[in-house]
């Protein structure tokens, strides 16, 4: 057996395409997922995230392209003949799962572990272990119909990992959950990473992804429009947001304050197009916001300028979620424009 390497590609998607009639749900997607990393898979509703994941789970057959999965050290192409063998190395949570309400987590998870060939004599121990991981030991013998949505979602994640796969594919695991449950799920994903699992996580909740993902893949209208680390994407987009809070400002002087801040900050943002940029005040959070080019030097210059001008700055940050949101909006907007241009050109040629 090959030695596990940090740079091992565990899943490789090559030109993956799914067409329903003339509609391309997924078009020519190339993606490598390496051992031990968390990939955030982002896209608007209907972008093709679930379709991609269903193809990986062999719930849908690709129209074209290949899926390669590493099992026992060897990368093999997923086919109908080896799908049981290869998919044993992946745990799936596809969309919001529904369980049999009259069954308990113990019964359900034991069944799933056995289905995936987990050694029978160890199933009971394994189920207890995974239930404990999520702090649900007290609930393992209670009927699932008595569980909240958050608890059911946790059982869904446990169902994906109960057979101890190397790769975990989670489709929108935090959607519809309250903030507490969302945090629990995020923490659990990080815990899985610490355990050496490789995670492919789809979501449209950008904050959740920004908190856990090592690399981010963005899909729009079936096409992969970006795939890189957050830092690299930030550099590519040359746009990010600074949030800061000022102590003891007066609401009456707010227009003057904003004018002063604009004068000080805007020349330091590093943005080429300064005309649309200005410091804004968020009434709800009482936080000032301004776009900048995402370069740490510029961030520092703005920070220093505020102190030099005697502003009592309480907090100064570049929230990752905002960064991802900006990236996401920019990239999807650009992609939508490109797709529209392609369609227009096609129509002109046709005419």
């Amino acid at each position, binding site marked *: 057996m090959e030695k596990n390497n940090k740079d091992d590609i565990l899943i490789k998607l090559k030109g993956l395409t799914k067409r329903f009639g003339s509609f391309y749900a997924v078009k020519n997607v190339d993606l490598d997922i390496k051992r031990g990393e968390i990939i955030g898979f982002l896209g608007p509703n209907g972008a093709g995230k679930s379709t991609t994941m269903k193809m990986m789970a062999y*719930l849908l057959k690709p129209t074209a392209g290949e899926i390669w999965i590493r099992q026992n050290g060897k990368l093999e192409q997923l086919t109908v003949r080896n799908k049981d063998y290869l998919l044993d190395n992946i745990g799936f949570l596809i969309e919001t799962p529904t369980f049999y309400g009259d069954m308990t987590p113990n019964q359900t998870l034991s069944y799933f572990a056995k*289905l995936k060939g987990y050694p029978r004599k160890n199933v009971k121990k394994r189920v207890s272990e995974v239930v404990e991981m999520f702090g649900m030991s007290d609930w393992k013998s209670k009927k699932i119909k008595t569980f909240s949505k958050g608890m059911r979602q946790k059982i869904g994640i446990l*169902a994906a990992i109960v057979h101890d796969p190397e790769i975990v594919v989670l489709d929108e695991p935090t959607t519809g959950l309250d903030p507490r449950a969302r945090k629990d799920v995020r923490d659990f994903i990080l815990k899985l990473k610490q355990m050496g699992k490789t995670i492919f996580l789809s979501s449209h909740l950008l904050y959740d992804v920004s908190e856990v993902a090592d690399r981010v893949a963005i899909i729009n209208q079936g096409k992969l429009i970006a795939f890189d680390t957050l830092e690299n994407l930030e550099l590519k987009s040359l746009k990010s947001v600074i949030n800061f809070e000022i102590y003891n400002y007066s609401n009456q002087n707010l227009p003057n304050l904003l004018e002063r801040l604009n004068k000080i900050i805007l020349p330091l943002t590093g943005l080429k197009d300064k005309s649309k940029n200005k410091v804004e005040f968020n009434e709800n959070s009482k936080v000032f916001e301004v776009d900048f080019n995402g370069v740490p030097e510029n961030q520092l210059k703005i920070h220093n300028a505020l102190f030099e001008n005697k502003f009592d700055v309480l907090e100064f940050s570049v929230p990752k979620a905002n960064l991802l949101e900006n990236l996401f909006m920019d990239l999807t907007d650009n992609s939508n424009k490109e797709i529209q241009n392609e369609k227009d050109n096609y129509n002109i040629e046709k005419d």
Partner: protein
Amino acid sequence: MSDFKEKEKIGLKRHFTQIYDTITFELKRTWKSFIMLLIVYFGIFLLFVILNELEEVQGVEPPEKAIDYIGGYLGMLGLLIIISTSTLGAAIIVEDFQKQTGNLLFPKISKSRLLMGRIVSRYALNAILIIFYYILVASITNYKYEEIPNTLRDSMGWALLYTFMIFTFIIFMSSISKNKATAIIISILLLMIAFNIIDSILMFTKTGIEPWFLLTYYENIITASLDMPDPRYETVSFGRPDPNEDQPEFKRWITPSASGALTGMIIFSVLLLIAAFLLYKMRQSKNE
């Protein structure tokens, strides 16, 4: 090395273990429904016992032959079979779409193995209900007549085969229905009303055709096999006899022959199962 690396039971062995695990899981899932049905079966049996005893108390002589006495108890068996097969079988396919449990199950087990496990477990429970009812009937017959006719065993065999065919029909309905309730209602309407209406139409139009294409026709052999009639049809007339007019007579088929019933029920079961499985596979793709 993790436990995961040790598990390499892929192939035929995995197929069988998955089916076995599904059977045990399904038995746990349907246990409550089974107990409820067991009570229903026992309740119906008890009802017949009480009715028979009441008749005897009122001076009505019990049937002379044990076979006739048994026939009375089997009169409601067709209805019981429809109730139990639809209770245990109506959700068998449709629930994966209605409850969206498919997303959880299908990355772990193929539809064919899942369906096979479900069929085996739920049919086994249906079969236990039938055998339980026959044991009750045999016991009371033995108590009353101090004998159990050998043909009761044949009747039970036919009942088990008929149950399987009706069960496959319910599975088929489950594969085309939107939810469990629809599958149950349509199945009961077809089995208890529509097929009987067609049977009556055939009789009144005097076609003389044996209704082997009606599933419910095969139910008749359960009782008829106790004492197989010859010929297998009877001539019946309706209305008040009028000496001035010839009474119209109609040919009614009592039961299929043993070979006909065996062939018919096996063919129906196989066709319905194949159709249900294909629809299950197609429907899944469409849904996704």
